[in-house]
């Protein structure tokens, strides 16, 4: 009994290792940069090189890092130290800019408040609910950077200029300066990144991700209607496959075809 557990554990880890070595993950082609941070121009060449030289596939680590390192080791790396320092300075600069923006927005609201006597505008409250903890801001900025360092984000911002963005449909970068609980923030990031996946570049198996229409109900309905016809016997069923319904009339073309064939048989 006791000998079985270690075996299972090693089996699990070795199979996990094999799985990670088996090749680029589904999302490696979406990364703008490879493991060493360089831009991916020819993604496939690069992933092969990395596998040969580094012994792990390129999507194993987050985009900009040079590899899986413990936090202590990462901070003693001069390259990372300088980058972190730079990020900290950028954060402070962003914070000052954000503060100024809020205070500027406050002005007109205050005047309106005095004249109309309306209840407190939310902008003056923004100043009090500012997130200023450097550690938190750094972490949030890193999470945002990971999301922005994707081909999907690149394609998104090129396709949809800011003034044409519609709330709800188009992903919006979470505001790192607002006070949120850790869970709330992590969830916002998760949802934001999921939404961004709609702009992923097409994969090699030819399944093109359609940017304009995400999976809408019409598609689902068509697929479900196809299944019952597969149960019908006959060579026609095997060859028909799943037909696309370009006109969206709702009736699968396959069914029509088979009806015609059946009709001809009867004759």
């Amino acid at each position, binding site marked *: 009994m006791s000998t079985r557990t270690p075996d299972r554990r090693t089996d699990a880890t070795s199979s996990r290792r094999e799985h990670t070595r088996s090749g680029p993950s589904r999302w490696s082609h979406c990364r703008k940069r490879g493991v060493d*941070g360089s831009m991916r121009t020819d993604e496939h060449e690069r992933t092969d090189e990395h596998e040969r030289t580094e012994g792990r596939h390129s999507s194993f680590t987050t985009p900009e890092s*040079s590899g899986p390192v413990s936090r202590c080791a990462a901070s003693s790396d001069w390259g990372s130290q300088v980058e972190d320092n730079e990020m900290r300075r950028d954060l402070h600069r962003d914070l000052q800019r954000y503060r100024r923006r809020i205070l500027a927005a406050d002005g007109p609201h205050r005047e309106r408040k005095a004249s109309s006597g309306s209840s407190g505008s939310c902008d003056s409250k923004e100043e009090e609910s500012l997130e200023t903890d450097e550690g938190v801001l750094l972490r949030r900025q890193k999470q945002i950077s990971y999301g922005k360092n994707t081909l999907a984000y690149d394609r998104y911002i090129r396709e949809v200029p800011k003034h044409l963005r519609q709330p709800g449909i188009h992903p919006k970068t979470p505001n790192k300066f607002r006070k949120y609980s850790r869970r709330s923030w992590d969830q916002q990031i998760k949802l934001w990144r999921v939404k961004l996946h709609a702009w992923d570049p097409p994969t090699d198996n030819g399944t093109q991700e359609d940017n304009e229409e995400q999976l809408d109900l019409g598609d689902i309905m068509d697929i479900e209607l196809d299944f019952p016809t597969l149960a019908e016997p006959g060579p026609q069923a095997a060859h028909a496959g799943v037909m696309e319904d370009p006109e969206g009339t709702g009736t699968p073309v396959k069914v029509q075809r088979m009806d015609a064939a059946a009709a001809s048989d009867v004759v």
Partner: protein
Amino acid sequence: MENSTDEYRFQSFDPDTQMLLKTALKDPSSVDLEKVSNIIVDQSLKDQVFSKEAGRICYTIVQAEAKQSDGNVFRRNLLNRLQREFKDREDMRARSIHEWVCYVTFICNIFDYLKVNNMPMVALVHPVYDCMMRLAQPDALKNEEEVDCLVLQLHRIGEQLEKANSQRMDQLFFLLRDGFLLQEGLTSMTRLLLLEILEFRAGGWMLSSTANKYYYSEISD
């Protein structure tokens, strides 16, 4: 019209490497930046004249990469290679004083040129001080090559170093004073260099006109 890349003294490289470096300056994302950073470091460890120039080249590539692709690949590779050499500096010095001196010249040059938001890179402050302290040790003071390197770098970046960490500068100068006063067997050239740097710092990182006359008027004559 002078080609700006000529300023960088690429003549010591073979034509292919020259092409690579010139491309790196203009179109960084099209080249293997890790390879470029290694080429530059390797040459800097051999050629002291080049190691004085290399900071400028590196700065240009870093700026070009940041502008072109918002990337940091070159800088990261450069710094981490510098860090690896730094870890093995004792072995390097035992192997070749010349290479060690080139390394110190190079890292100080990088410290001088590669600023982040117009501030020197904090990560390099302690390593540079460590190098300076090593050069101020009794065994190093016996070599004119090392003393020469020490005072030259202090002239170039001493003021910035002191601003970054004045305590360590004080410690360094304790060593230099002790060396000047107490160490036997130093050449007169070495003692001259040490005295000059002591006066230089005491004068707020510049020489008074009289001191300048004392140390340098003979050369101009």
